[in-house]
C-alpha cells in the first residue's frame, strides 16, 4: 500500500497560510488511502498557483499551458486509460482561459477528475479579478470594481449534465478527502470545485469568511436529482453548501471509443506489415 510519504514532492513555493497546502496534502492522503501507486497517476495542470501543484507531489505530471489542462488530460486518458488522470487548475486557469475546454470536457465525459482551486482571485498575476470574483470586487485592474456577474461552475456543470459535480473547502480537509476519493473513483468526468482563501490578494474570502458560511449537504440529499442539484448549486451567500451536488451514471469517452476497448492505445503494437493492404484502396 502506498503511503502519504510516497507522494512527497518538492517544497511548495506558495505563500504561508495558502489554502493550496491543505488541498495538496489532501490529494496525497486521498491517493494513498485509495491504494493508488504514484506511477499509476498522472496529474496534469495549467498555469497559476494551482498549476504548480504537480511539482509538489510525486507521480507522473504534466504542467502545461495556462487554461489548457483539460485537452492534455483528456488526450492522455485516451492514449492510456489505465492511468488515473487528475486535472488540477485554478479558477482563472479553468473558468477563464480554459472555459471552452471546461464546457467540452463535460460533454465528452472522459474518466478524469478535475480539481479546481477556486480562490475567487488571480494569485500568480497578483490580485486581479477572476471569473468567480464577486461583482464589484475592487482590484488594481478593476478600478470600478469587477463588473461581470460571477461564474457559477457548479450550475453550469449540472446544466450540462456533468457526470459528477461537487464542491469542497480547503478548510474542511476530512470532507475534502472524501470528496476527492469519490471523484477519483467516480466513473466519468468529475468536477470538484474547491473553495480556498488567497491569503495575500483576497482579503474578503478568508478562511473565516468561508467557515462562517460553508455547510455540508444533508445526509439524505439525493445527488441523482438534477433539478434539485441545480437549485442547491444556486445557493451562495450567507450559506454555501458543500458536498456532492450531482451524479449521473453514463458512458465515458474511453468506453465509447471502440478502438481502445481491448487495451490502452499506448500498448498497441505497430507494424507497417499489418497496413500493407491499405495502399490497395488507392488503385
Amino acid at each position, binding site marked *: 500500500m502506498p503511503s502519504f510519504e510516497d507522494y512527497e514532492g*518538492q517544497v511548495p513555493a506558495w505563500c504561508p497560510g495558502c489554502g493550496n497546502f491543505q488541498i495538496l496534502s489532501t490529494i496525497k492522503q486521498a491517493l494513498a488511502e485509495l491504494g493508488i*501507486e*504514484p*506511477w*499509476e497517476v*498522472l496529474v*496534469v495542470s495549467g*498555469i497559476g498557483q494551482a498549476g*504548480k501543484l*504537480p*511539482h509538489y507531489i*510525486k*507521480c*507522473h*505530471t*504534466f*504542467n*502545461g*499551458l495556462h487554461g*489548457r489542462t*483539460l*485537452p*492534455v*488530460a*483528456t*488526450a*492522455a486518458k*485516451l*492514449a*492510456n486509460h*489505465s*492511468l488515473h488522470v487528475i486535472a488540477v487548475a485554478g479558477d482563472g486557469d479553468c473558468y477563464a482561459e480554459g472555459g*471552452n*475546454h471546461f*464546457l*467540452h470536457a463535460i460533454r465528452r465525459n472522459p474518466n478524469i477528475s478535475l480539481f479546481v482551486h477556486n480562490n475567487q482571485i488571480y494569485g500568480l498575476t497578483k490580485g486581479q479579478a477572476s471569473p468567480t470574483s464577486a461583482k464589484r470586487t475592487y482590484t488594481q485592474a478593476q478600478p470600478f470594481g469587477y463588473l461581470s456577474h460571477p461564474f457559477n461552475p457548479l450550475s453550469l456543470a449540472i446544466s450540462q449534465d456533468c457526470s459528477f459535480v461537487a464542491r469542497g473547502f480547503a478548510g474542511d480537509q476530512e470532507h475534502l478527502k472524501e470528496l476527492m476519493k469519490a471523484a477519483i473513483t467516480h466513473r466519468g468526468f468529475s468536477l470538484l470545485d474547491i473553495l480556498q482563501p488567497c491569503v495575500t490578494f483576497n482579503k474578503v474570502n478568508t478562511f473565516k469568511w468561508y467557515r462562517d458560511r460553508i455547510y455540508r449537504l444533508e445526509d439524505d440529499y439525493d445527488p441523482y436529482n438534477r433539478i434539485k442539484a441545480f437549485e442547491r448549486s444556486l445557493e451562495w451567500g450567507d450559506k454555501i453548501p458543500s458536498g456532492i451536488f450531482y451524479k449521473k451514471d453514463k458512458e465515458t469517452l474511453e468506453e465509447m*471509443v*471502440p*478502438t*481502445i476497448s481491448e487495451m490502452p*492505445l*499506448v*500498448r*498497441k503494437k*505497430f507494424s*507497417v506489415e*499489418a*497496413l*500493407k493492404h*491499405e*495502399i490497395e484502396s*488507392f*488503385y
Partner: protein
Amino acid sequence: MEVKFLDYTLRVGGEAGQGLQTIGGALAKIFSRKGYHVFTHQDYMSRIRGGHNYYQIRFSDRQVMASKEAVDILLALDRNTIEIHKNSVKDGGFILYDSESIKKKFEGPQFIDIPFRKIALDIGKNSVMANTVATGAVLGLLDLGLDVLNGILRMTFEEKGEEITEKNIACAEAGYNYAHSNCTRCEAFGIPEPESRKLLLIDGVRAIGMGALMSGCMFYSAYPMSPSTGILNYLASRAEEYGLVIEQAEDEISAVNMAIGASFAGVRSMTGTSGGGFSLMEEGLSLAGMTETPLVVAEMQRPGPATGLPTRTEQGDLLFVLHAGHGEFPRVIFEPGTPEQAFYLTNKAFELAEKYQIPVFILSDQYLGESEWTFENFDLKRLIYNDYRIREKDLEGAEGYKRYRYTDTGISPLAIPGEAGKHIVVADSDEHDEEGHIIEDAETRIKMVQKRLLKKLPQIKKEIETPLLYGDSSPEIVLVGHGSTYGVMKEIVDIYSKDRKIAMMHFSQIYPFPELDRFDYIKLFKNANLVISIENNASGQFAKLMRTETGFEFTHQILKYDGRPFTIENLKEEIDAFL
C-alpha cells in the same frame, strides 16, 4: 524525332451541389484504372450550393503533374460553365451539355447536346441520375468502355439496392451510346490503348494521412478547416480498421494540446489545420518545444490573411510556420512537391519528431492537398520506423529516471508514463531541471537551452536532404521553387529542355535550410545566366529565406497570389518574358 504523347484535359464545371466531385472523382478513377496517368485539380468556391466550381482532369500515357488552361473536353452542368470556359476549349475540342436542362442551345462544331436529364428520367425514372448519364457520355466520347464505371457504380450504390444500381448502370450505358453515336469527329481523339498497368491515384491530403498511418500515428486531433479537413476525414475513415483514436477538438488550441497530451502519454500523435487554425496553435507549438514532446503538424495553406480565400491556394505561411511559437526551440519543416513526397516526408516527419523530441511540420496547400496524381507504386520498404520510447524493460536496473537528463546529444530518454515500471515522468512548460521540475536559476537555464536547442540543431541539420535538381546538370536557366510548384516547374523544364540548358531546383526539406557541404546549389545558381524564384505568394518568402540562410539574392521572381495555382501556360508565359 518528336514523340507525340497523348495528353488530354477534361474540365467538369457547374454549381456547388451539382455533383462535380462525384463525376470528376469517378472519371479520374476510371482513367487511372484504365492505365492512364492522371492529374486532377479542383477549383471551387466556399459555398455548399450555387456559384461556379470546376474539377479538372488531365490524363496522359506518361506521368502528368500540373494543370493546363486549354481544354479538350468541357462537361458543362450549367450554362455559366459554358460562358466562362468555352474560350478555353481547343478548336478540336468538345463541349458536352444538355440544352434542355440549361435552357439554352449552343451552335458550333464543338457543342454536343446530350439530353442528360431526359435520358435519366426515361431510363432511371429519376433526374438525379443525369450525372451518371453525363459520366457515361464522357466515356462514350472517348470510346473507353463502361467496365470500370459499372464497377464503381456497383460499389457506390451497393447499399441502395439492386434496382438503383441497375438503373444507374443503364443510364451510364445510354449516355455512353448517345455520345458515341452522336459524335461525328470523335475519332479525332484517337486514344491509344494505354499500357496495361496498375496505377495508384492519390491526392496530397490522403498521402499525408496514409503517411501518418504507416508511421504508427494512432492519435489525430483536429478542428475542421479547409483544406486540411481531408486528413481528418481520411484518418477517421480508417480509424476502426487500424485502431486509431480520432478526436474532433472544440478548437485548434485544444487540438494541438490534445496531440501533445497523447504524445506525452506515449502515442505517436498528429494534428492538422490551415493558417488560421495554426495561428491558434502557436502557444501549443511552443509547449511541444519546451516539453520536448514529439509532435507532427500538417499546415495546409490557403490564402490569408484572416479568413482569406478559404477554398483556394497559396504558399503564404512559410515564414509564419518557420517563426511560429514564442521562444527558441528546434523545428523541422517539410514542404512536399507531390503526393509521393508527402507520403515519405510525413513518415520522415514522425521519425524526426520522435528521434529528436521536437515539432515537425508538413507544410502544404490546397493545391497539392486536393490534387490527385497517379503513381506506379509507393515503396513501403522505404518507410522508417524506430521506436524511441522508453519502457520498463529499457529501464531495468536504472537508478532514477530523469525525463530531461543531460546527454551528449541533448536527447533525453523519453519514457512513457505508466509503462516505465515505477519510474516517474515529469514534464513542464516552465523552465525545468533534469527531473522536469520548475527552476529559475541561470545555470540550469543555460544548460537546458543547450540541451534542447543548441546540441540538437547540428544533428537535425544533418538529417535534411539536399534540394532536388531536375534537368540539365550545369544549367543556364534555373527555376527554383518549393512545395506544390514541383509539378508545374518540372513540366516546364521538359518543355524547354529541347533547346535550352534548363533545370529545376526544388526544395521539399525546407528547414533547417539545406546545407551546402553536400551540394553547393548556390554555386550552380551563380554559374547560370538566369535564376528565377517561383512562388505562390506575394512577397517571395522563400527567396527571403534563401537570402537569410545563404546570402544569395534572386534577381528574378515569379510570384502568383491570385489564390490559384500556376498552370503550365501561365507559368510558361511568365518565364518567356524573362528570356
